[in-house]
């Protein structure tokens, strides 16, 4: 069965994924809104930057983050000046790395959901004396709910599943950076296949359950299923 270190890894993973998902929804929604509505020349470059983690090997992202957040990197100097120490090999270092790594999985579904609405709901709201802020909260966001749900689930699942970035930036510190994927790797390295089986099976069941829940919710809401990137 699962050992205490396994349970610790599971707990850490859930904590990390939840933190990252909530932060990404808060930060990603305005970004998605801007990308969906803007006609700025920066739309292309920003979209490309957001999508970059989709194609980069996680080790590349992890490598540059390690330098950027390390003692001689600009962010490392900044966090040290604040008296926070450096971020690599800490929980919050993992959070920052995961934010970047999972960003496209959250931004793109929300952006698609807002783009799919077209300008009409916003125009209708304006003719009903609903100002931009009111309209955002009571029309744009509720209409984008399926996209937000998809974004949350994908962001969460993707953060749970990350490995390369964690290894680069977090290492393997129990209770701090040793997430489930790293724990499984450790078990396999140590030839503890039974332990690896239990943890892997738990991951499969968990991931399947989350995705199933998402599909069921969306089917009930509308005939449109989970469509990522469409």
């Amino acid at each position, binding site marked *: 069965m699962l050992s205490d270190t396994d349970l610790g890894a599971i707990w850490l993973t859930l904590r990390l994924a939840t933190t990252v998902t909530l932060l990404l929804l808060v930060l990603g929604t305005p970004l998605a809104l801007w990308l969906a509505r803007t006609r700025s020349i920066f739309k292309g470059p920003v979209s490309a930057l957001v999508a970059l983690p989709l194609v980069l090997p996680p080790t590349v992202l992890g490598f540059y983050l390690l330098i950027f957040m390390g003692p001689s990197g600009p962010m490392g100097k900044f966090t040290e000046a604040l008296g926070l120490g450096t971020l690599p090999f800490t929980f919050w270092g993992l959070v920052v790395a995961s934010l970047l790594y999972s960003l496209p999985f959250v931004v793109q579904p929300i952006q698609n959901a807002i783009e799919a609405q077209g300008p*009409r*709901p916003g*125009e*209708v*709201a*304006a*003719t*009903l*004396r*609903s*100002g*931009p802020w*009111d*309209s955002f909260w*009571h*029309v744009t966001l*509720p*209409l984008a*709910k399926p996209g937000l749900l998809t974004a949350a689930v994908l962001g969460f699942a993707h953060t749970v599943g990350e490995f390369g970035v964690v290894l680069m930036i977090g290492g393997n510190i129990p209770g701090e950076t040793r997430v489930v994927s790293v724990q499984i790797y450790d078990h396999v390295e140590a030839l503890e296949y039974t332990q690896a089986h239990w943890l892997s099976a738990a991951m499969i069941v968990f991931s399947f359950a989350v995705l199933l829940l998402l599909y069921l919710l969306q089917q009930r809401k509308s005939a449109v299923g989970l469509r990522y990137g469409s």
Partner: protein
Amino acid sequence: MDHNRDPTPGIQGHFHLPRSNGDQQGAFTLDAKLDLPGTGVTGIFGPSGSGKTTLLRCIAGLQSCKNASLSVNGETWQCSSKRVFIPVHRRPLGFVFQQPSLFAHLSAGKNLEFARKRAGEAVSDSDFQKIIELMGIGDLLSRGPESLSGGEQQRVAIARALLIKPRLLLMDEPLASLDQMRKREILPYLEKMHRAFDIPILYVSHSVDEIARLADYLLLMEEGKVIGEGKAAALLSREDFPAQLGDDLGVLLEAKIAERDDQWKLLRAGFEGGALWLRDGGEPIGESIRLRVLARDISLTRSEDTASSILNRLPVRVQEISPDRDPAMVLVRLKPLSDEGNENTSGSTRLIARITRRSLHQLSLVAGSELWAQIKSVAIVR
């Protein structure tokens, strides 16, 4: 509420919006000067792509227009020279879009509440009920927009626009997305609304039927420009009314119900220069109605064809023959013989028939010929 308005009522303004190639609606330069009455229904009429919708969107503020001014019953909504631009959500207007545009995440009732909460002035429960009854949507309130028919959705959308308590109601072809059945279903509601609320309405349409039924005043547009305006009845009967109407070309007659034939369920409506038999729709004797006779519904015979199924036959004289846009067709303007004593041309009745050039030749028609006009159908438009 602030009621001290400028003494100049009405809707005045101008919009100059240069064509932009990136814009799909930008095939023309909108260049419109407006001076419209501040009450009643003003129809904005023109063929597709003539700038009607763009003009309406400019008036609403949905389309930004750098060179523009607009004042509605004395309130300035927009003036580029004074750098005034009231954003859409601060303009006291209601807007009904061509496509039913209920918020998909709210039930019909919640859609109405959305407007009621944001209305310019409090909407009392009795007002709320009145609007719901007027639009006949009391049974639909708990349902989601996706479960309503297009016509039902549009009725809810109109109720929603009314609940915002607008001081100007803008309607952008509200019936265009509906089939013929649904149009007939909604038109009576629009007429009731027109009578029940004293709100000036700008009604965009390319359907002469709707315009003839609803509009008091008319603005004609073509290629982004205003090409004519005036009282609807007068303008719709004018012979130089845009020829692009084609199949919809016709005249409007102001008539009065004179007689009811109970045996055959018909009504006789008298107008200056004659009378026409209509199907009995229950109109009381003495009621003033507006009739529309389409040019394509008039055929011409040299002698009276009493063996015909066509009920309405009038002796007429050809006044003028003019070419139609279609090279196979001509337009023949006719004057009923019984109206000939009436030299007051403005009040005299004329009919227009659209016949083939070949028929014109076969009947050897010239100005002055005496004929019988057979009228296949007459529509009561109001």
